[in-house]
């Protein structure tokens, strides 16, 4: 059963890592589809 739980844990780890990496690489919707003249936060 260990492989099953490691597999589930890997899903979580990959999801978080993918989010961090893609955001850092400039792939967030904000970076791709917005510009400096647009204020999205606050």
């Amino acid at each position: 059963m260990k492989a099953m739980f490691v597999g589930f844990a890997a899903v979580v780890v990959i999801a978080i890592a993918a989010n961090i990496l893609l955001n850092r690489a400039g792939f967030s919707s904000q970076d791709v589809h917005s510009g400096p003249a647009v204020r999205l936060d606050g």
Partner: protein
Amino acid sequence: MLRMALVFFLSLFLVAPLAAQDTQTPTAPDRSATGGAQTLEDILARQRGEPVDDAFRKNNTGDPDAAAGIAAQLGTLGGASDPEVWRALRYGSADVTVSAGGEVASVLMQDGGMRWLEFRRGPLPKWGGWLLLGTLGLLLLFFLLRGRIRVDEPMTGRTVTRFKAAERFGHWLLAGSFVILGITGIVVLFGRLFIAPYLGKEVNAVLLDWSKWVHNNVAWAFILGLIMVFVMWVAHNLPSRTDITWLRQFGGIVGKAHPPAKKFNAGQKFIFWSVILLGGSIAISGLSLLFPFEMPLFAKTFSVLNQIGIPGWFGMDPLPTALAPQEEMQLAQLWHAIVAFVLMAIVLAHIYIGSVGMEGAFDAMGTGEVDEAWAHQHHSLWLDEVKDPDAKAPEGATPAE
């Protein structure tokens, strides 16, 4: 005398600035760049409070010859009318130039959007939902009629390794991510229909926001699991003659026979190729959705289908090959959801047979170890190979009874 001198000097100080102002009378700026209309400098001068001679505007009325030529940048519409411009915008034929946003931003009205919206909130959830419920109903009916498929022979207590740790890891990476993607996808599609009316729009909005985040990011685990499973098991899932025997006896699912099978029987091969092909298609359309407008798929696909002539086989007109960027996304979303519904239905059957439907089946993917009695009943040729790797089982082996 002194007073007179003082008045004289004071008068000089007061008059001097006026004289200086006289020398700064604005000269008419060059307005050729705007076709005679006011320039940025005119506007700025007015904002600074400086006098602006607006005769060039005030007197520029009622003289058709003073208008810019039809072909000029600021020319009149000539023979075209405003409604024609709006019609061109409506049907996507207007010559729109945008300063930012590219081809996507140049589409001001997108006709296909309504077709997509109607399908997404009508037939898609309706038929998709019934497909899943129908599958669950059939599985329940099958369970009531057939019951749990038991191991006929007594358990031996001896086990063989059915799946190694890496295989089980790959399977659960794929399975875990698929279940999460399925649930979050259903929340995104059905939230407005079944969550918002009962739990409120706020709850639905929070669930939708979370589901979108999870769906977008868990997708990578699914793609990785798909690649792992394909690489590890493709060699075992190529069609073979034993599949015919297995299918002829309905895999022992119907009836009491236990047809021989290698590592994977024909039913499992069907699941494997469904997951690889449908899952692969879901992954590709999902990537197209994850990177909007970067990976358009359908215009090219339709072009290939038209060249082969497939629409004609069904009496259809050729499929459209000039699609707005938004339409590409809409088709990707519909395809993604439709194929996902089909794969979810297939996987529900897989989950059933791998858990409550068959005694001992879960152990294969749980601990990786299966009893020899189970292995002999369901995968006799594979068991022979495992026990004696040197002896190759004949293709047309007799059924293990």
